[in-house]
């Protein structure tokens, strides 16, 4: 699965990614907050059966870093 497809899937579940690209810094997303982090964990668990830790997400700088945590690539 391409990163763009992963991003499209993520955008359908987590509203803060609308308009984002692979290289968008997470901190620049206006709605990137603690709720969005929960929604990301939930989306990735439901679709890829892995549960990311809070630490793994906190270490991500861009959308690409986040998508790289999904092991299906």
């Amino acid at each position: 699965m391409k990163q763009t497809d992963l991003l499209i899937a993520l955008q359908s579940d987590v509203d803060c990614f609308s308009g984002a690209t692979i290289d968008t810094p997470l901190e620049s997303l206006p709605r990137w907050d603690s709720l969005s982090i929960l929604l990301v964990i939930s989306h990735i668990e439901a679709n890829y059966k892995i549960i990311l830790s809070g630490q793994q997400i906190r270490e991500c700088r861009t959308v690409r870093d986040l998508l790289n945590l999904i092991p299906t690539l």
Partner: protein
Amino acid sequence: MKTALKNFKIRAIALSTGSVTRSYIEDGLAQGIPQIKLERISQTIGLNIRKTALNNITALDLCEDASRRLLRQLDLDVSSVDAIIFVTQTPDYAQPNNASLLHGRLGLSQDTMAYDISMGCSGWVYGLHQAALLCAHGGLGRVLLCAGDTLSRTTHKLDQSINPLFGDAGSATLIERSGAEDTMYFMFGTDGSMSSAIKVPAGGSREPLTSKSKEELKDKFGNITTQENLQMNGADVFNFTLRDVPQAIQAVLTHANYKVSEVDALVLHQANKYIVQLIGQKTGFNPQQVPNAVFEKFGNQSSASIPCVLIDSLGEALTKKAVKVVGCGFGVGLSWAAFAGEIGPVTVCPIQPYPQTP
């Protein structure tokens, strides 16, 4: 750790909430948070109304009110209570414990056990297990289990990540020895390696209250807290509710030999509406089996939330018949405790705010 007990029953349940009605949207607007942001969060996790206690009201007061209403409704002689177990994270004092204070207030006989259990959101199930042990194997006839907290006062008012979540409540549950052969199945778990995920760092022996513990710290989302406030790492806690809580529910279902389809209700700690719905989905229950209205009406009530669901969502059924219930409390510790068994018929006292407005 799994265990099972019989020869006890839940005879009655009561719950008193704080008397102050708070609206998430109105409070947020008053703090200058944009309405669109508040509505997004409100709709996603179910933040709406919560009931908090007046500043001079503690978990002890709320549980005392619930206990008095319960004993009055049953017309019970208080001297017939053999033990009080008080589950709380917000006791009146470091010493003595709340159970002894409540013993004094209710005027119970000196021939009574009274002790606290320091547990949060998994605590009602721990208390139920303790009370059941005392009745089933300890020769006691009647145990008053109180579970409640005033967590709304433990958070910093400018910590938007957790301040709006909590309501205050105190519950009372009467457990009695019975000759019935019905079994209650339990499953307990702990992850102490994640104990920092929900924590009030200062105020105990390890980190006393000092001017430093009062220093305000700001996170990257603009939330403010101090070492004296309840702090929660939402992502780590969420992680645990996705991984360990569904496993515990599956394990207690297997332990009790219950099929999901034969269970009348999955009664979960009401951490928030989103988490309750998600755990229901992950464990294969249909939404009608999983009551989730309590969080929107009262907030996250810590150890009082499971008895609140029993009264608010199942109260009518419980007064009439035995209801097959699977439940799970989960939170600070990190700790989780699941149970499965039949409850009822039970005397159910209505949920009331305390103090009552004249």
